[in-house]
């Protein structure tokens, strides 16, 4: 848990992966380009002394290091796995539900495991989704509309086929849909990750929540406009968050826009681990401030109550997580014992006037 101004901030990292981009797993040039592109993002926003080596530490880091990075080195209390299959690029997939399950099953209180679907898989895809749900009791799915599949270079969330899968989600009670709508990777002209397909999907499925990952960047304007009209659209801050590190003024501006258009109840923190490591990112975002000009212009605040919501409470609400109960559980769970975190969950901080 993070502590600020005498308050506890329960941190749910809303966007993490356990990926494998080892050379042995790459089957397509796209797989190599993909991890190199990730690494460019990594080095662009990570403080120099905290950067990882591409081949030694970044292509594949394994379950053990992930646990240490999130819970020992960072103030993360829980994390949500967002799978990215990319099976045309990687032999065993880049970051599948099954791969993530390795850790999620070992520490079920600490991780939320999301599944995924691809409407191009048709009937077998629907069966796979059901099977995932039966095995892992999914509450959410991550969908990657720009994924290549043979000849196809992507799909849309407002396709008829996609709607069948969303109907299946309603039926199964998978309420949280996380479309990746971020920086581009899909080739060709109708450039992927266009956030506009979320609009129709969100209004057609009012019982589902659409957490648009990466707040639609580089289409923040389209995203905010859609979210302003659809109350079941949320913003995942992965990729926007690290602006706090090297462009604090820009972070202030982005957050001000988001808080103005969506409000403080519809934004979720995410590190995008291992793109960025929450060990520095959580602190950087918690310490970030809006500039006085932006506060005056937009009339919004990045104060402790707002941070508590964005860093954890909003995700807890979507995933039915009882934070008080978790804190009690975490007083003596395996992670707490392994990393000596007892103090974090010791209960109410002394009525400190610090």
């Amino acid at each position, binding site marked *: 848990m993070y502590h600020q101004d005498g308050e506890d901030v329960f941190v749910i990292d809303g966007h993490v992966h356990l990926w494998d981009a080892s050379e042995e797993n790459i089957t397509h*040039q*796209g797989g190599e*380009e993909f991890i*190199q*592109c990730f*690494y*460019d*993002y990594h*080095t*662009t*926003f990570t403080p120099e002394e905290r950067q990882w080596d591409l081949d030694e530490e970044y292509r594949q880091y394994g379950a053990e290091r992930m646990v240490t990075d999130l819970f020992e080195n960072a103030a993360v209390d829980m994390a949500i796995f967002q799978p990215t299959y990319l099976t045309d690029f990687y032999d065993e997939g880049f970051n599948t539900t099954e791969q993530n399950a390795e850790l999620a099953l070992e520490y079920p209180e600490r991780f939320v495991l999301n599944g995924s679907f691809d409407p191009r898989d048709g009937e077998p895809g629907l069966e796979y989704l059901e099977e995932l749900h039966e095995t892992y009791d999914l509450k959410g799915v991550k969908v990657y509309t720009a994924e290549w599949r043979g*000849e196809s*270079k992507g799909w849309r969330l407002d396709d008829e086929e996609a709607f069948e899968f969303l109907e299946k989600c309603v039926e199964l009670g998978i309420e949280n849909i996380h479309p990746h709508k971020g*920086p*581009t*990777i899909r*080739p*060709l*002209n*109708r*450039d992927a990750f266009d956030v506009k397909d979320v609009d129709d999907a969100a209004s057609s499925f009012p019982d589902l929540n659409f957490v648009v990952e990466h707040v639609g*960047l*580089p*289409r*923040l*304007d389209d995203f*905010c*406009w859609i979210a302003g009209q659809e109350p079941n659209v949320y913003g995942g801050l992965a*990729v926007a968050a690290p*602006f706090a590190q*090297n*462009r604090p003024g*820009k972070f202030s*501006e*982005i957050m001000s*826009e988001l808080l*103005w*258009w969506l409000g403080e109840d519809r934004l979720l923190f995410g590190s995008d681990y291992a793109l960025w490591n929450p060990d520095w990112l959580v602190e950087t975002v918690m310490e970030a401030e809006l500039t006085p000009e932006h506060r005056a212009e937009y009339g919004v605040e990045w104060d402790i109550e707002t941070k508590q919501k964005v860093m954890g409470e909003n995700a807890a609400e979507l995933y039915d997580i009882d934070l008080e109960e978790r804190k009690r559980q975490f007083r003596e769970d395996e992670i707490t014992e392994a990393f000596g975190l007892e103090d974090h969950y010791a209960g109410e901080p002394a009525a400190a006037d610090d």
Partner: protein
Amino acid sequence: MAGERPRRPTPAEPRRADVLEALEPVTDPELDRSIVDLEYVDSVEIGDDGSHVAVRITLPTAWCSPAFAWMMAVDARDAIEALPAVETATITLGEHMHEAEINRGVNDGLRFGEAFPDADGDVAGVRAELDEKARVARQYDAVEALLEAGFAPDQIVALRKRDLEEGGDEVVVYLHERAVGVFVPADPLERYLEKACETGVVSGPDDVLFRTPEGEPIAPDEFDLVHRRGRLARVNMSTQGGVCAGLHEARQQRLEESTDD
């Protein structure tokens, strides 16, 4: 080259500076900023008689949208070929995952759909959408300049093209049937007008100058919201510019390191 006298270009032959000047108006369509200012242009080579120019361009990532890359390459080619004395320009896009298709297509004068047969639409649609965003972002700057100069929202939404009169560094903006003229910095207004005309939302002298992102005239009571949307478009562009600049830097560093090895 010892002993060899450098050949003086004839006045019509372009120099490096002329080529860069010609490339200045070519923009990264997503950022609405010059590819020269963004330092995407790696090298300029001018052939012996100046009739051929070769330019090499590198974008921030190998994953930059092929449609965006295509637009920049085509625009760069056309801008250079418009220079007097230049007959052909060769554009080489380096370090891009679709460099082969783009380089061949642009230099052989193909259409986008011919270079990318499985593309699901034409590049013109993408360009139109980005131009529209650039127009909205530029509108924000223009309206800010008018607000700064003391205009009220209902005056701003009522302005027509004929109410503007060029005057050097400043534009005269007329109010009350030309009874009053106010000086406003020219740059943001001219930049806006250029994009507004290009996108076709403003053409004739009687056309209302400022529009919603959808291209409609603005009702006075929606002024604030429309202006906020312009601000948002501006923030989006500069945010993406920040991402691209960072990636560009990271990539240059990685490429340099790998050359050093």
